[in-house]
């Protein structure tokens, strides 16, 4: 096990990167503590897979260094880094039994039979696979197969880190809950460093202690799930985290006071006028009120446990989250924003926190 550190890592898939847009990874400095549970979160094309491949050794970065503990591993091949990976699609030998699947990486390394047996049974117990050991892997459900992929990584004693690349994509929702809880529980029990790559905020937030949010080849915020929800440093994070995401509304600044649609808004931050100033407020912190921003209710979506109300002020869409069964006003609706959860952004960044 080891601490993982990336120092000034940049990567371009082009021979001669010319402009900023040619860099798949712009510049990444990152540290993962030994035993932590991390998520790498972002949309397609944000650079998260590139970053993962650099850590696992499948890609050599254009510049910068990668360290496992004190050791510089930048030039080491993947098989010399002792990393276990779990991919989107389970990698399982269908013709083998569950037992032989788990034993495979150990036997490959010439581990004595008695030790193989002990490890396999230990891992099977961790993953609730004991009863299935003699079964052929072919007959298992998708989540069972994904557990085997994971189990093969756990079986090896020398693993530095387990990396998951969108591991729940092919798993049904009701099984996702089970497997996700299992991963979380596993991390709490064995304390191995785990890195979970996903575009799905719920998976990232529920699994990780620290979430690394990526956007256009750069890290925009590293934080706990609560920090990302309550204090998104960038409007991208506000929009990307949360379902629906944060409302981002253009605003004017007059004497440090933000105004939207002529209505003064109390924000947690104050700012001098910038090139582009915006208010960020999550749908959870907007409510219908007597006074405030006048809006027209355009649509109400029933999400079961809550309702998502889409309102319009001119061309600006403002979403409001209401409880199940709560009344939606008809005519003359007005919105109030919770001041403690209303943030001010200047050129995309939270006021007072530059890039």
């Amino acid at each position, binding site marked *: 096990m080891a601490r993982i550190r990336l120092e000034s890592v940049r990567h371009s898939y082009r021979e001669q990167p010319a402009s900023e847009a040619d860099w798949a990874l712009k510049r990444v400095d990152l540290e993962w503590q030994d035993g932590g549970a991390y998520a790498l979160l972002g*949309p*397609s*094309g944000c650079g998260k897979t590139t970053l993962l491949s650099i850590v696992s050794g499948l890609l050599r970065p254009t510049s910068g260094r990668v360290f496992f503990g004190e050791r510089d591993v930048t030039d080491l091949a993947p098989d010399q880094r002792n990393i276990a990976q779990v991919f989107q699609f389970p990698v399982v030998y269908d013709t083998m039994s569950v037992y032989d699947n788990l034993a495979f990486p150990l036997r490959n390394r010439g581990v004595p039979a008695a030790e193989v047996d002990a490890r396999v049974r230990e891992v099977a117990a961790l993953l609730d696979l004991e009863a299935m050991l003699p079964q052929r892997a072919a007959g298992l459900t*998708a989540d069972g197969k994904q557990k085997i992929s994971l189990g093969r990584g756990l079986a090896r004693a020398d693993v530095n880190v387990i990396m998951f690349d969108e591991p729940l*994509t092919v798993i*049904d*929702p*009701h099984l996702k*809950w089970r497997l*996700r*809880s299992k991963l*979380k*529980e596993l991390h*709490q029990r064995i304390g191995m460093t785990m890195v979970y790559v996903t*575009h*799905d*905020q*719920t998976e990232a*937030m*529920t699994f990780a202690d620290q979430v690394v949010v990526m956007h256009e080849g750069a890290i925009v915020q590293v934080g706990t*799930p*609560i920090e*990302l*929800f309550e204090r998104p440093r960038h409007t991208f994070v506000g*929009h*990307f*985290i*949360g*379902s*629906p*995401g944060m409302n981002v509304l253009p605003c004017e600044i007059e004497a440090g006071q933000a105004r939207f649609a002529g209505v003064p808004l109390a924000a947690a931050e104050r700012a001098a006028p910038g090139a582009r100033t915006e208010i960020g407020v*999550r749908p*959870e912190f907007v409510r219908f009120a007597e006074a405030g921003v006048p809006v027209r209710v355009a649509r109400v*979506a*029933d*999400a*079961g*446990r809550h309702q*998502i109300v*889409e309102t319009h002020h001119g061309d600006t869409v403002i979403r409001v989250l209401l409880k*199940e069964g709560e009344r939606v006003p008809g005519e003359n609706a007005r919105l109030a924003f919770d001041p403690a959860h209303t943030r001010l952004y200047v050129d995309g960044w939270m006021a007072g926190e530059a890039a």
Partner: protein
Amino acid sequence: MLALRDVARRVDGRTHIHPTGLELRAGGFNTLLGTTLAGKTTLMQLMAGLLPPSAGQVWFGGRDVTGVPVQKRNVAMVFQQFINYPNFSVYENIASPLRVARRPDAEVRARVGKIAELLQLTPFLARRPAELSGGQQQRTALARALAKDAELVLLDEPLANLDYKLRESLREELPRLFADRECTVVYATTEPGEALLLGGHTATLHEGRVTQFGPSGAVYREPVDLVTARVYSDPPINAARVTKADGRIRLAQGVEWPAPAGLADGEYTLGLRPHHVVPATNDRAGVQVDCKVLIAEISGSESVVHFELDGLTWVSLSHGVHGFRVGDRARFALEVDRGLYFALDGARVGG
């Protein structure tokens, strides 16, 4: 309108689809909700004419189309395993059904442009499918289905491979897009949340059987049986054995409450959705229980806590952030007035 009349499908003596009656109206979203292998894809293939039913009839627009092959029906389909014309550009892929229908160039340009914009494909119109990411290829297939003026549109988990945020916006846009068209849309998904947000009607499927069909919110809130409640719940609905006697419902030692009207004495299964099990605070009503926390997850706006009660694992889902730690003891309120009661054969009973 699309009607299935006692349509069944058997292969080598095994039943894939039990006799099914279903009437889907034009102009609304009809969602088939069920787990993988519940029969969603088979049912769609029967609707399209890709598979012949072993029994029953398929009616479309007042006509029996049971033996009519898919080419002779005006059907558009998008499957999870998307298909595009590899030699065509993205533009020509989207335009292909309009070309077949010999629409004028100006109209083709306008429609392709609008649909490409909606699906965020505008920058890629000149590329070939092989030069696209999986998500972009899927969007191209979806765009082609939207461009075609089909009477029946079948969408089989079309968003499954897409990014979360794109899925979120398409979930909003898709029903809007079909709102003013006179076509019947059938949409298959494994996700209860998606079925609800799409609005319209939901048919819940379980092991080749449609268990309920109705307005999505009604099926969600008033499931006819426990199977339907389970299919339409994410996270999974809490289900526990309870006993009714002496006018009270008893869940465990010391955990009981007044019985709702209309329940005979006996054993039932109580179904309580995770968001009706919340951390207990003083001002909360409900039946309170003291439990050990097994798993605590925070998803930003919501907290999910798994705890053990009377040998069963329960799931609580609540707004806001709660600082529970694994192994803590904590009090939860069961909002039993929101509970659903099922007879032991699974049928829902009482109000």
